[in-house]
């Protein structure tokens, strides 16, 4: 049985490596971004990609969708986008025969009825439209005209947003941000990466990425991810990290008390552990380590920390605060740590 688990873990890790390589054929560099997106997919969460225009956010999502044998939908969020444009609507059936068979209205499904949803420039839609995603993201179901429609699994939303052009945008409310497992920051490419991008995109069109895994395999990976165990000590570490992010908590570092208004909540802790499990799976491990937690701390917590006035005015980033948390919250009891270092 141990061997069987080992085999599954190895297969899962291999699959993720293959997927990463397949994406890497289209996306230059951005190794961490790709990893974090894949972790979010395997953990069964949604990811919000934030970066300047032209950094390949949309391409990454499209490539990922292309590598997966899943239904892909793209929603380009604009201010005039309506919720029904996302979830769909009932339309009048004109064909008398058809009407005679069922009813006068039929459901015209929106793009949300897919497996991989690209919510491009999600912050350009009005909050009303943004909120149309809430139920789908949280419950994997939508309610149209009073009727609840369960979405097909796997279902995950990969949203992008542009932090630069803030005019005419509607920042996502905390409640919606909290639905994203990870917030992935897409950095500017390095010089080498940029050269490679230039080489790839200014020549002939390259082939479409190959399909790496299908729907069933994705669901298996997600189940396997859930099977990865977390010891109480490691889980407690995740809990301590989240508790320390709460400014009102006694154990919170001074910088957190000063720079934050709200800390990460329960969903933050869940995201930490789920993300860490995905990391462990990617390394063919059946248990989570402290390093796994630390590895996903930034993408899992950065969008859940609400800065205070002082934090914003002093330009303190949530990433720097997460780093402080990682430094100040000890993984092991001090006596053990001291002995281990001696």
């Amino acid at each position, binding site marked *: *049985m*141990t*061997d069987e*688990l*080992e085999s599954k*873990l190895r297969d899962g890790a291999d699959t993720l490596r293959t997927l990463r390589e397949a994406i890497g054929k289209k996306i230059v560099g951005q190794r961490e971004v790709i990893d974090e997106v894949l972790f979010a997919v395997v953990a069964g969460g949604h990811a919000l990609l934030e970066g300047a225009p032209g950094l390949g956010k949309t391409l990454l999502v499209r490539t990922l969708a292309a590598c997966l044998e899943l239904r892909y939908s793209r929603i380009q969020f604009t201010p005039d986008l309506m919720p029904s444009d996302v979830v769909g609507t009932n339309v009048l059936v004109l064909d008398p025969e058809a009407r005679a068979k069922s009813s006068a209205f039929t459901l015209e499904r929106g793009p949300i009825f897919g497996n991989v949803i690209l919510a491009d420039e999600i912050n350009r839609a009005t909050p009303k439209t943004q909120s149309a995603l809430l139920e789908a993201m949280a419950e994997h179901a939508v309610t149209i005209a009073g009727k609840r429609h369960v979405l097909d699994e796997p279902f995950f939303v990969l949203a992008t947003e542009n932090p630069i052009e803030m005019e005419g945008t509607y920042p996502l409310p905390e409640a919606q941000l909290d639905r994203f497992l990870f917030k992935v920051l897409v950095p500017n490419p390095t010089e080498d990466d940029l050269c490679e991008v230039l080489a790839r995109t200014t020549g002939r069109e390259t082939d479409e990425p190959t399909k790496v895994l299908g729907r069933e395999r994705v669901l298996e990976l997600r189940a396997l991810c859930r099977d990865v*165990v*977390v*010891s*109480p*000590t*490691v889980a407690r570490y995740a809990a301590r990290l989240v508790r320390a992010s709460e400014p009102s908590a006694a154990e919170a570092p001074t910088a957190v008390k000063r720079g934050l208004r709200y800390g990460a909540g329960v969903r933050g802790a869940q995201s930490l552990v789920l993300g860490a499990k995905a990391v462990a799976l990617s390394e063919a*491990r*059946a*248990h*989570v*380590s*402290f*390093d*796994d937690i630390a590895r996903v701390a930034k993408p899992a917590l950065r969008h859940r920390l609400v800065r205070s006035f002082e934090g914003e005015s002093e330009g303190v980033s949530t990433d720097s605060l997460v780093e402080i948390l990682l430094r100040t919250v000890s993984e*092991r*009891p001090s*006596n*053990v*740590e001291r*002995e*281990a270092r*001696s």
Partner: protein
Amino acid sequence: MTTPSTSHDTFVETFERHARRTRARLFARYALHGIGLGLFAASALVAAYARWGSPGSLRAFAVGAGVAGLALGAGGGSIVARKKRWSDGELALFFDRRLGTNEAIVTAIEVEGARDARKRARSALDGAAPKALVVPVFRRAHAAAALSLVTWLLAARVPHARADVPPVEPGAANVTLGAGSGLERVERLATVPARDPAQRERLLALSKDAKKLREDLTKGLPRRDAQDRAGKLAEAVRAERVTLGSGEERKGLEAAIAALSRDDTTRRTAAALGDHDLHAMDRELEHHANAREAADRTRAKQALEAAKNAAKSEGAPGVAKALEDALSKNEKREARARMLRELSQGTTSPTAKDALKNLDRAPSDANAKALAEALADALEGLTEAERKKLAEALGKMAASETDPTSAKELDALAKELATDEGRAALARRLRELADRDDSTEEESRDQSLSEAEQGIDGTEGALGSGGGGERGDAGSGQTAGAAGSPGGPPGGGAGAGAGPGSGLVPAPGAGGGAGSGGAGSHHDTGTGDHTGRTEALGGAGFKARAKGPTGRGPLMPGTTTAWKPGDAQGTADAVGTKALESARANEVQGADRGDVPEDYREQIHRYFRP
């Protein structure tokens, strides 16, 4: 294929093995911490003891403190080690950290079904390098513990440096004396009749000094100063008593003593005169004066007459005057005793009869006075027959009285005895007789000086100085010096009674040394000197054998025949019996009172620390 249970058992076994070893090492470290702290505390205590404590018991204290520190430290360390004992989870975290197993071990320990983690953990533990999981037992702090151990050992072994301890100044401690110290008796000398104006001044000065000393002692005075001043006072009081037989009168005194010594009746009187104790001499004489037997009285009177004459003829007017006063006083006593006996012939009063018996048995002044009182009391209930007998007795006394005034008075009393006034007059006369003080001025002075001497001796005793004897004057080496008589009343301290008086054995040759003196006495008036010396010895003739043969037989208990290191605060006890250490406090303090060099005094205090 390994079954899960076997895998689990193997992992647990491996983990337990490493856990035991790690816990044991941690326990040892905490115990060492405790021992180190205990030894450090012990060292500090020993150092403090060496600085401020009693140096004589430093080693014993060091050993005790060290053992206690060791035991307490080890015990405390063990308790702390048990309290801080690592749980399995902590150990697993430690192993994970050391082996870099990504928390496989802690997961294996804490999660029941984590088979993959357990497999990884077991593999990591099995493949761990021997030193990878070792917890160091020794820490830098233990170097301090070792240093403490060395310090403790050194403190326990190195002899205490005596130079660091300032020697206690002997007699420097303050002493206070309250009322009743005896100095009041010296103060009373201001009212004592003086022999001449010069003595008057001296007695007043003595009284003043005594008062000042008493006041100073009430506030507190260094013992040595107090002893010194009290000693000077005592010397001065004694000097005032030396009125007989000093200087040129000595020969007359000796002649008088010889005259009194010839008769058994007055032999003790002679001794009292030899002691220059007029008070004691008077006590002896009152015995004879009050005696019933006329022969005794006569012999005593004759002996006194002979002594008086001898003193007078040998040129000792002072002694002759004292003896004459004694004779005169005795005559008055005789008359009183005779009168009382005659008056008591007819009395039927039981009290008076008892008083008469007492007087016959112990013919003292006190009993004579008691008889006079009893007779005066008995006059109130006098019967007619008794009155007649009493009147006859008075008549007889008047007839035999040589003094016409007294005879007339007695006759009048006899006639008026029938009246109440007459009886009252007789009673008054009897009471006057009882209260009469026949003491001479010299006696009174001597008695006061004697009391003052007793008082100052008591003060010296209370101050811890010796009152047992006084240094006698040096006697001549050629003739036998007078042995010093026993000293005054015993003081509180042990005083040296031996004085450098002249020896009882005359020195046979020229330049003979001063002989051993008798018991010192303030009456010793020897005038010898210390010019004698022993003959010089030729040092070249002496030989020493550093390695002399020792007996083959068993040694005496406690005998040391080899060199041994000196003990810190050891004594001069060569045989190791420590007997010298048992010197009593007053014996050691005797050195303070003795006329010994200051260095020697200090050495005595070092050797004997009671």
